[in-house]
């Protein structure tokens, strides 16, 4: 009798142990998680096949099922803000440099330091520290994952009409002087062409100024694209916050802008803001020189080929070869506070950077189906693919890491050259105060007012639409009325406190 009973107990124990082991292994592979990503844009073709491939590939590790919500560009920020306020569940979203910290302050997004330490090894390895600087909150927490673009010289790259330059026997454009001669020639001889499309000169000017004026400067706050305060990091006035618009640098901008306008380089209603023909303007023959970034060279090139094959476009850069200052990141990914599994979200972001295969899968699609690789490792799309209908293109593009990017065989030469240049360009070190973030909480009214005044005057002052010392003085006076002294004082106080804490 006892023998039989003992035997049954043994069987029960064995079964229990087996069940426990089963449960343990089941717990080790995570349950399938529905990852919801928000992005701006329109759904491109054949996304689902790539998502399915990712789900299959990560079944035993990451185990995510991806869904992407596509929101129209104009409504994107508002929609995401609304979703956060209504506590709707989503995991990852696209965000921008100003928006990221505001969203974090409103507790819509979570800090990522711990999660990155645990699950973000590839991210920390492959994204340069100089980019992480821009993804911090005022008290140093990491609040977003930067999208790592190559230096693209967005503020300084110019596209010009080579055929015009050759026509007037002008040398290659490499500095302000040669640019000036080109633009003068166009202004004088081509009445139907506007030499320069709005805002461009300031780009070159700023780059030139950085060469003319030493030491390195840092800007305290750059909301909506406008500087407010700045300080020099070396020299007698180091770390003293000053009004940028009262400084000689801004005044040089103003003079150069007035000069440009008087030499006929601009349209008279510059900055009307409704140009309409922005990038296509050069391909259609309306302008002779355009400021842009190299990401859109293919756009311009294709436009020109279609519209005016006789145009030859070339890329010009003021002070080519010189080291460039580090640029702010523009796009980031953030993890929502309403996410059901933030760890999984970070793991996913990490997964994309983990290997070239993963990156290729996300960015170019399924090898063999959507693209093939040339012998050089360039991406080759099927013959006859047109740019508006690629076999696959990822709308959540903002996980980009230019070091893992492949060249695309159909890129125009201009684009390839520029890409090579910017990949290898030397970048100046960040100013020592780069990590400082100005807290705007107590200055919202002043900043809004300043932005309004600056918008009203500065675009016109820096482009020669408004000229003369009287106007400039009026602008400075209105800035003071709008609260400039209060902001400068506040910025100085915060900067001093920050420096004391970061000795």
């Amino acid at each position, binding site marked *: 009798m006892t023998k039989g009973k003992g035997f049954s107990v043994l069987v029960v124990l064995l079964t229990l142990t087996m069940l426990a082991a089963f449960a343990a292994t089941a717990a080790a592979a995570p349950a399938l998680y529905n990852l919801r990503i928000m992005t701006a844009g329109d759904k491109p073709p054949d996304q689902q096949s790539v998502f399915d491939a990712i789900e299959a590939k990560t079944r035993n590790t990451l185990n995510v099922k991806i869904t992407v919500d596509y929101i129209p560009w104009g409504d994107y920020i508002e929609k995401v803000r609304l979703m956060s306020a209504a506590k709707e569940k989503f995991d990852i979203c696209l965000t921008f440099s100003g*928006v990221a910290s505001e969203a974090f302050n*409103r507790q819509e997004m979570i800090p990522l330091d711990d999660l990155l330490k645990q699950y973000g090894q590839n991210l920390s390895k492959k994204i340069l520290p100089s980019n992480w600087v821009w993804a911090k909150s005022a008290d140093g927490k990491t609040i977003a994952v930067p999208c790592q673009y190559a230096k693209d010289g967005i503020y300084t790259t110019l596209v010009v009409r080579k055929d015009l330059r050759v026509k007037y026997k002008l040398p290659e454009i490499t500095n302000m002087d040669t640019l000036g001669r080109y633009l003068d020639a166009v202004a004088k001889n081509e009445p139907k062409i506007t030499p320069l499309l709005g805002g461009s000169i300031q780009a070159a000017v700023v780059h030139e100024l950085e060469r003319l004026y030493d030491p390195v400067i840092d800007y305290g706050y750059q909301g*909506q694209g406008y500087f407010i305060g700045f300080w020099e990091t070396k020299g007698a006035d180091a770390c003293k916050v000053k009004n940028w618009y009262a400084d000689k640098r801004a005044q040089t901008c103003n003079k150069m802008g007035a000069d440009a306008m008087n030499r006929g380089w601009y349209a008279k209603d510059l900055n009307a*803001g409704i140009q309409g023909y922005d990038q296509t303007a050069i391909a259609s023959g309306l302008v002779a020189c355009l400021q842009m970034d190299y990401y859109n060279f293919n756009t311009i090139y294709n436009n020109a080929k279609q519209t005016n094959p006789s145009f030859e476009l070339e890329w010009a850069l003021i002070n080519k070869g010189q080291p460039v200052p580090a640029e702010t990141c523009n796009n980031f990914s953030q993890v929502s506070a309403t996410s059901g599994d933030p760890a999984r979200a970070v793991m996913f972001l990490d997964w994309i950077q983990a290997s070239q295969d993963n990156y290729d899968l996300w960015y170019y699609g399924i090898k063999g189906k959507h693209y093939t690789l040339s012998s050089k490792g360039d991406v080759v799309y099927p013959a006859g693919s047109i740019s508006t209908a690629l076999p696959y293109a990822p709308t959540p593009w903002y996980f980009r890491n230019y070091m893992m990017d492949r060249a695309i065989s159909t890129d125009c030469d201009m684009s390839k050259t520029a890409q090579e240049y910017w990949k290898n360009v030397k970048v100046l070190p960040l100013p020592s105060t780069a990590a400082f973030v100005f807290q*705007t909480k107590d200055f919202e009214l002043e900043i809004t007012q300043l*932005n309004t005044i*600056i918008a009203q005057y500065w675009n016109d002052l820096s482009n020669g639409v408004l000229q003369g010392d009287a106007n400039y003085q009026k602008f400075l006076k209105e800035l003071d009325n709008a609260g400039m002294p209060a902001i400068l004082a506040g910025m100085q106080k915060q900067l001093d406190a920050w420096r004391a804490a970061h000795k």
Partner: protein
Amino acid sequence: MQQTCAANNPALASQEIQRYGGEDGDLAMNQIKRRGVFQELYGNRALYLMIVPALAVLITFAYVPMYGIQVAFRNFNATGGVAGSPWVGLKNFMFFFKSMFFGSLIFNTLFLNFLFLTAGLIMQVSTAILINEVLSKRYQKVLQTAMFFPYFLSWIVVSTLVWALLSDSYGLLNKILAFFGSNGVVWYKAPNYWPAILTVANVWKGMGYGIVIYLAKITGIDQEMYEAARIDGANKLQEILRITLPMLVPTVVLLILLGIGNMFRGDFAMIYQLTGDNTTSGSLRSTTDVIDTFVFRAMRVNGQYGLSAAIGLCQSLMGLVLVLVTNGLIKRYDKELAIF
């Protein structure tokens, strides 16, 4: 005796109104007023029930969410939500009131809305009356349809058209002016013209909508009145002035009152698109920046819902005050013309 009858039989009561009419009608009304609440509701239950579906929709989608008005007094964050975010009292309101643009924003909003309302009214009423005078009914319909098309174009598209018209280098208007020997104007840098430009655009867009309303009203006017007037020897102008216009007065008053309620709300979509987000072309700010465009810009610095809620609440309150005053004044003149 009469009172009891009136209380129990609404039909009889109405008969009494008809019989008495005028002041005596009011007398009967007073007698009806002395009925209790439940008697009123029960007595006219069919009519009150007809209100219920609309009221249900309104309560669900408009009244229930009104608890969100408190956001105006809070510093909204995502964790706290509507009821849990920290209370800051009037701080969000101060943002607007302390702004150095406070005066010009209010002026621009009111001034532009006044222009839109007046110009729109005059154009719509006059055009509706004139269309009605066209002899061919078919051509009337053609005209009406043609005037409706602007409604379908979004401001995004219209802004491109306006730029094609007013651009300094490529614009049509300057080319026309050049033909007449003038130097042309750099329209996008000349703020003083823009109230007029915006008014034209606003009237242009709303023509079809307004004309439909007034034409619908005009067709409802009893033809016998015109015939009687013609027999009495009235000419066309007198017909219009003595019959048509007075019949349109209730509708005009209604639309004016509604317009007054919205006096403090700027037409954001139009102004934002046509002036190119007058941030970029800040040169137009002095005459085109309204409360709503300012709030939009402020929300870009810090997109905290409390801010927009506070300013929205101000706009509503100020509009309410205006409406109460105007509605009250109108009531003294003729009770039926008022909204409430």
